[in-house]
């Protein structure tokens, strides 16, 4: 087969919604785009454990603590599913970690914001996980098989994350005046960064066109952002909280909520590494990796020793 026919075969599959699997031929750019997107997604799950991990020891009840631990554990799991999916494209786990630690690979900029109060656990579950679900549901049908299968698993587990967050917000919003204020304050701080989670506007998103062509992405950044705004405004009403945007208004003609201008300079700045917690997050990951070296080495040594002992036993029996 010529290169043209490989390409043709690939395009035909994409057009007829047949998933691409690891050993299938794929264009280099498709592979590269997927490695970038899946590893970035995996890193986000792993770094995403840090802001919430901050509150496990200070959860207000045993129930909340058990729930938060389960959620953080899930995020570790989601990171692992995604790393495995990326590995099927020919990049090793260690290479991905190295890219994260060197700053070459990005993770979702939302995790570079601090978690100042318990209400932030509610806002993160409700808004950040809510935005993540909005992004992830269409990815369950993404064209690359291992990524799609990982996302199915992630989405199944994620909906409890959003519900537990909403429940925290509801409890606080309907609680004392101080608690209500705390919920509103968390909402104020997480609203805009949550909208930024969908990425730059379509006009400035360099990867959108090819990702849509390859059916990696099913909706554009702006489409998903609008969908998120529409559902979240209604949910805020249930909570009795104010959307921290004076321009929020129902637009009869569009059938959507209009919203204010997003501060993209802030977004770019956080992506560049200048957010409130970038340094702290990356240091935490690097330190966990470095301090875990002896554990990884010990496990390898132990496995080798056991293997050698087994082999020796087999030899004695044979003799």
């Amino acid at each position, binding site marked *: *087969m010529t290169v043209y026919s490989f390409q043709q075969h690939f395009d035909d599959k994409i057009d007829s919604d047949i998933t691409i*699997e*690891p*050993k*299938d*031929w794929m264009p280099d750019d498709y592979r590269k785009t997927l490695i970038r997107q899946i590893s970035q997604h995996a890193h986000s799950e792993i770094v995403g454990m840090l802001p919430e991990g901050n509150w496990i020891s200070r959860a207000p009840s045993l129930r909340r603590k058990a729930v938060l631990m*389960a959620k953080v*554990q*899930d995020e570790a*799991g989601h990171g*692992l*599913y995604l790393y*495995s999916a990326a*590995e*099927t*494209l*020919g*990049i*090793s*786990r*260690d*290479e991905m970690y190295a890219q994260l630690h060197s700053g070459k690979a990005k993770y979702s900029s939302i995790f570079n914001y601090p978690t100042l109060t318990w209400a932030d656990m509610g806002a993160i579950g409700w808004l950040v996980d809510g935005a993540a679900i909005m992004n992830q549901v269409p990815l369950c049908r993404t064209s690359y098989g291992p990524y799609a*299968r*990982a996302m199915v*698993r992630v989405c199944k*587990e994620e909906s409890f994350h959003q519900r537990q967050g909403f429940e925290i917000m509801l409890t606080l919003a309907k609680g004392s005046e101080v608690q209500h204020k705390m919920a509103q304050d968390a909402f104020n701080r997480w609203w805009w960064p949550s909208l930024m989670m969908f990425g730059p506007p379509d006009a400035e998103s360099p990867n959108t066109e090819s990702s849509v062509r390859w059916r990696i992405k099913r909706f554009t950044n702006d489409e998903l952002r609008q969908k998120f705004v529409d559902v979240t405004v209604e949910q805020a009403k249930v909570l009795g909280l104010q959307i921290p945007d004076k321009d929020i208004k129902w637009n009869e003609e569009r059938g959507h909520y209009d919203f204010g201008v997003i501060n993209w300079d802030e977004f770019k700045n956080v992506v560049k590494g200048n957010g409130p917690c970038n340094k702290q997050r990356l240091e935490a990951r690097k330190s966990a990796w470095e301090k875990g070296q002896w554990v*990884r*080495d010990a*496990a*390898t040594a*132990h*496995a080798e020793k*056991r*293997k050698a002992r087994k082999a020796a036993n087999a030899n004695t029996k044979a003799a």
Partner: protein
Amino acid sequence: MTQDNKQNKTEWPLWEVFIRSKAGLDHKHAGSLHAADVEMAIENARDVYTRRQEGVSIWVVESKNIHASDPAQSESMYEPANDKIYRHPTFYNLPDEVKYM
């Protein structure tokens, strides 16, 4: 299933995980993970793939021991079955009087 990576020497080997979701059903591929040895692979599989009672039994096999058919050969590989519809019961016409067959 995972492609052969340029594996880092210090990286733990990769394992494929198969899970039986309940008694009586087949083990089904769930995903993969890294572990130093088989015991660790099973324990990690428990933590990564059965946090919500998804399984009652786990198989793990080192990824390098899995051999797969070549997708480039798919056409010739599976073509012979295409024209043998007589292998399906619906191929045969039976009189209406014959029931339960």
